[in-house]
């Protein structure tokens, strides 16, 4: 029934709007856009592994995006991905990188000295997380920033301000703290929120959250960002977090305090661009027998766990060939109390049939080293497909 209603609404919308992608009544301007992307995935399993279910075509995106302005004071964005909704309804676990509802926010600009955004959407933490997927040659973000370690979206309120000719931005926000699961409604039994702050600065001009220098920038451009987030979700005795709230690695929410600090840097010049990003998490579970302490004594753990990693990425846009080449290296340590870390390499090649609007993308994944906490059944993967944006 839900699908029927959604399909009917979409059909009605398209029928009534004809070929228009922007509607206006003089005060209210509404823009309709979206994307469809599909890829084929081929996974190279380790010896002895036999589950080949990841060798398949996948509809990654079937997005519809409504963006609007009402007068000069209000902006809103409503973005949904029908492919993810269908997957979630079929009983699959929610992919934090593709949760279904992608954005439902209203921004109020009437205060002039700052803007206020409320609703559900990307939180202002991590440049790589905020970078729009459609401008990337990759099919998947780095593991560190794809929502398995810390949430990428949440319900809450953000205050934002830019200054110095838009070269500097500051964001301060409070959110439920359950990330993508916050849409379920209630908070966890602790009732506490997560607080996030970010500051970034660019030179010599403002620097959008883009990885590829498709304008062949003739003057070197740099940007640096610092961000942090904090939550204290100490559960009352006998209470638990909602199912899957802690995420794949048990780090997204923890029974105790969690501090996350991150730094990112980016540059671009003459088609070359590079990004570096590092995150460190300090976790202080309230109970000595928390699984994150991996059965070590308080004397051994000193009452906290460290987790984190970094990403380094280099890109080149070959304008005459309409082609992006990119390589990415990532290191991740899920728990410093467990020896070892993981190392991943990925490269991407994207050919623009029509700019970013129609792009063939190829990504190669290679697990160079894996962590004992996160054993994988595969070590190489290939993904090729096409993204199509309509607007």
């Amino acid at each position, binding site marked *: 029934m839900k699908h029927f209603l959604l399909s009917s609404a979409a059909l009605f919308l398209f029928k009534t709007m*004809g*070929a*228009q*992608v*922007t509607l*206006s009544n*003089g*005060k209210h*301007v509404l*823009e309709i*856009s979206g994307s469809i992307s599909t890829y084929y995935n081929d996974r190279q399993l380790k010896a002895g592994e036999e589950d080949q279910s990841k060798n398949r075509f996948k509809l990654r995106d079937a997005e519809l995006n409504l*963006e609007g*302005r009402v*007068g*000069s004071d209000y902006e809103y964005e409503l973005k949904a991905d029908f492919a993810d909704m269908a997957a979630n309804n079929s009983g699959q676990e929610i992919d934090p990188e593709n949760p279904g509802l992608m954005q439902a926010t209203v921004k109020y600009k009437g205060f002039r000295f700052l803007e206020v955004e409320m609703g559900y959407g990307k939180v202002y933490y991590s440049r790589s997380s905020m970078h729009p997927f459609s401008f990337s040659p990759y099919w998947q973000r780095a593991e560190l920033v794809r929502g398995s370690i810390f949430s990428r979206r949440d319900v809450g309120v953000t205050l934002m301000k830019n200054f110095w*000719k*838009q070269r500097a931005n500051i964001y301060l926000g409070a959110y439920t703290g359950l990330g993508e699961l916050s849409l379920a409604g209630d908070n966890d039994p602790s009732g506490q929120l997560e607080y996030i702050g970010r500051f970034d600065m660019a030179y*010599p*001009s*403002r620097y959008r959250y883009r990885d590829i220098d*498709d*304008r*062949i*920038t*003739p*003057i070197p*451009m740099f940007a640096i960002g610092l961000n942090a987030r904090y939550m204290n979700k100490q559960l009352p005795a006998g209470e638990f977090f909602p199912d899957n709230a802690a995420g794949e690695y048990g780090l997204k929410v923890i029974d105790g305090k969690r501090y996350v600090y991150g730094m990112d840097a980016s540059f671009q010049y003459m088609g070359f661009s590079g990004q570096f990003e590092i995150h460190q998490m300090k976790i202080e579970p309230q109970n000595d027998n928390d699984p994150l302490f991996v059965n070590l004594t308080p004397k051994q753990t000193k009452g906290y766990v460290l987790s984190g990693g970094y990403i380094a990425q280099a890109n080149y846009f*070959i304008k*005459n*060939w309409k082609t992006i080449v990119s390589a990415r290296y990532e290191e991740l340590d899920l728990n410093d109390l467990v020896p070892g870390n993981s190392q991943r390499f990925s490269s991407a090649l994207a050919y623009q049939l029509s*700019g970013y*609007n129609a792009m063939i993308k190829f990504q190669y994944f290679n697990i160079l080293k894996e962590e004992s906490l996160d054993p994988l059944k595969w070590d190489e993967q290939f993904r090729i497909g096409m993204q199509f944006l309509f*607007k």
Partner: protein
Amino acid sequence: MKYKLLFLGVCFSISLSGQTQKTVRIKPFKSIATAIPEPSDSCFDKKTNHFFVVSDNGVLFETDHDGIILRQKAETNCDYEAVYVNDDFVYAVDETHRNIHIYDRNTLECSKIINVPYSGGRNSGYEALTFNPVKQSWLLFTEKNPVTLFELDAQFVITNQIALSALARDISAATFNEGFLWLLSDEDRTVFKLDPKTYQCIARWELPLINPEGLAFDAEGKLLISCDDMQRMYYFNNPEKP
């Protein structure tokens, strides 16, 4: 080995295929920081030797050669992306609402607002406006997705449209100088000179600037480019008379 050479040869051919004309790189001889936030287009007023400049937040400015603001007029709920001046009026184009605001050039009072409907993306609407004296028609250009040149009559009714996506990834400004149409592409950082009858490209010049959005020629034929993100105005010698 034979196939690799063949592949490289094909790639090289593809890379050359889009460059039928030589692109010359030019450098500015002077730049001015301006107090105008996000200047998105400029035009030259022959009567006063001043410039009119519009900004993304809906303000029309009149400046001197040094970018000093002489007059300004603000509108609410506007995103001006193009400006044109003639003997009597200043025309400012609101990209978001597809409106042309017509100002009395002496008083800067807005006398009329004309809507020219366009159903493309909100931020890919009209980005450039000029008058073609050869064909006696107004020219409006959409920024991208796709780049389209619209010819309009004196009442701003569209009479013809020409696809220009093959010329550039986007168009951010347009003007006429010495009988030819000149266009500016922000994403390609390139100025184009076009035949005013056929709209065929005659020559092109590459600019070493970040986010160039405005294009004008002054009385001496010097080229003025305004840059949105940098909030600067750059002077170039006339590219045809370096």
